[in-house]
């Protein structure tokens, strides 16, 4: 599938944003962090900025961005619609929580209530995002049970990395964050490995022979394409990345997204000067950003759409 940067940015930014939001909400519920308005301002600011940037980026992918509001209509059948609705809904508890943290509660138990709502709303939103892809049987690499869980776990992991940076920067206790983030990273790494194994070994049951119904005559091979230059379908669905190249990128993403941040996370458990801790946290965040960018790019680039059997023969 053509890796559209607007969509990649959308899933990465919103994933990290919701992840950070969830951690902040958990921190609020469990009183893991003092009610520092500066932390709150920058923390929720970052989370909501990421979420909003992501959502806006996704509208760049649209042919008619001005009509984006229409996407909320079909939540009964469409995961994309559900994701839109969930995103809008999540703003409510997230906003309430942010305002309460920064400016103080104006209704009793505002923080507790909004945090308690924000977590499931944010989780649901990420889940819906993942399901947009996972619900499509036409793309085997997406139609996997691990896809939506990986979205959630990576959102939590990248959000956690950002949380560590925020806490370190504003001089708050962050060990708990590191202790939460490292397992999230480990889980993410395990799930990604299982996912890649699943897609590498998946049986490619959709064949050009079944697609054309001509299997009774033998192997189907394209002779002339319908257009000698790529058409929309070939551009959108025909992207291919070479196996060797993909392998290298997988290793790179593992290193940048999981290894470096995990090591950084462990280092953050050590007694190091704060300035150094900030540097470590920054490196971790930067590494994780590039790593998740590569991971997400591969998620698109390695995905094959079944329609390409009409253009290339073979199977999907």
């Amino acid at each position, binding site marked *: 599938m053509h890796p559209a940067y607007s969509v990649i940015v959308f899933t990465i930014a919103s994933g990290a944003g919701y992840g950070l939001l969830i951690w902040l909400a958990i921190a609020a519920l469990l009183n893991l962090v003092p009610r520092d308005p500066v932390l709150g301002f920058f923390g929720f600011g970052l989370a909501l900025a990421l979420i909003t940037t992501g959502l806006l980026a996704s509208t760049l*992918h649209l042919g008619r961005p001005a009509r984006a509001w229409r996407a909320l209509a079909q939540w009964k059948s469409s995961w994309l619609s559900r994701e839109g609705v969930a995103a809008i809904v999540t703003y409510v508890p997230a906003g309430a929580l942010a305002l309460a943290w920064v400016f103080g509660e104006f209704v009793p138990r505002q923080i507790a209530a909004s945090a308690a709502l924000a977590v499931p709303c944010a989780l649901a939103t990420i889940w819906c995002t993942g399901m947009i892809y996972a619900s499509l049987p036409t793309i085997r690499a997406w139609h996997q049970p691990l896809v939506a869980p990986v979205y959630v776990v990576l959102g939590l992991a990248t959000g956690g990395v950002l949380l560590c940076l925020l806490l370190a920067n504003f001089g708050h206790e962050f060990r708990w964050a590191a202790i939460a983030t490292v397992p999230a990273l480990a889980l993410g790494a395990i799930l990604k490995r299982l996912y890649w194994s699943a897609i590498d070994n998946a049986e490619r049951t959709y064949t050009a022979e079944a697609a054309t119904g001509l299997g009774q005559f033998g192997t189907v091979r394209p002779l002339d394409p319908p257009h000698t*230059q790529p058409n929309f*379908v070939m551009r959108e669905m025909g992207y291919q990345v070479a196996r060797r190249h993909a392998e290298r990128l997988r290793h790179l993403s593992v290193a940048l997204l999981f290894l470096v941040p995990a090591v950084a996370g462990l280092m953050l458990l050590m007694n190091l000067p704060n300035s150094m801790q900030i540097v470590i946290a920054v490196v971790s965040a930067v590494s994780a950003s590039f790593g998740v960018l590569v991971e997400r790019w591969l998620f698109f680039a390695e995905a094959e759409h079944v329609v390409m059997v009409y*253009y290339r023969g073979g199977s999907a």
Partner: protein
Amino acid sequence: MTSLPEPNQKKLGLVIDLDTCVGCQACATSCKEWNAGGYSAPLTDQDAHGGDPHGTWLNRVHSYEVGDGGGSRTVHFPRSCLHCETPACVTVCPTGASYKRESDGIVLVNPDTCIGCKLCSWACPYGAREYDYDDGVMKKCTLCVDRIYNETFEPGDRIPACVRACPTGARHFGDLGDPDSAVSQLVKEREGFDLMPAMGFKPVNKYLPPRPRRDHSAAPTPQATEQPVTSSGSLADRFFAWADKTLAR
């Protein structure tokens, strides 16, 4: 409305005869031409005279070879929306712009409400959905909904543009939900099939398979009765004797 309508008896669609298509592109261009001014107008083009020409087409013709060696075949293969009974392109649409008509089963995109998110094109296994780069909305075969009920047309012309154009008669239009319709009879007689049935979207359009060849691979043809050879000698001699005798009658 992306939830699917109540299933109706009427299922309009096309039957494509793979044993008769010669790959002439008349259907693809007639469709492009009709929709340049019709329901899906305009069907735009990008870089039409440049290095990377591409544009919106609702029907396209592939060519395949099937098999190896002497038993292989060339098959020309037009593909357009199959107007499935349970199409995913309708249910994934977030705005409801993609919908299936209750009255006749035609799947359409409402160009006024489509946001161009392309999710329907991801959901369609057949590549039936095109994104129009200029218009910013999704387009697809409309089964010429603006022709088939058109009262300003002669009744015989109330058929999709591609069907009217097809020079070899490889395209047929009708109600696949009516077992007595001409198209349904044709499907039954020629054992028409679905594309990628395992996807489960229940395409309405049907394809007719190529017929067996009548060449060396087929059963031997009945021998023409040969005249008995009545005289000996060289081939030429025998032939001349026969020619002489025959004309003597």
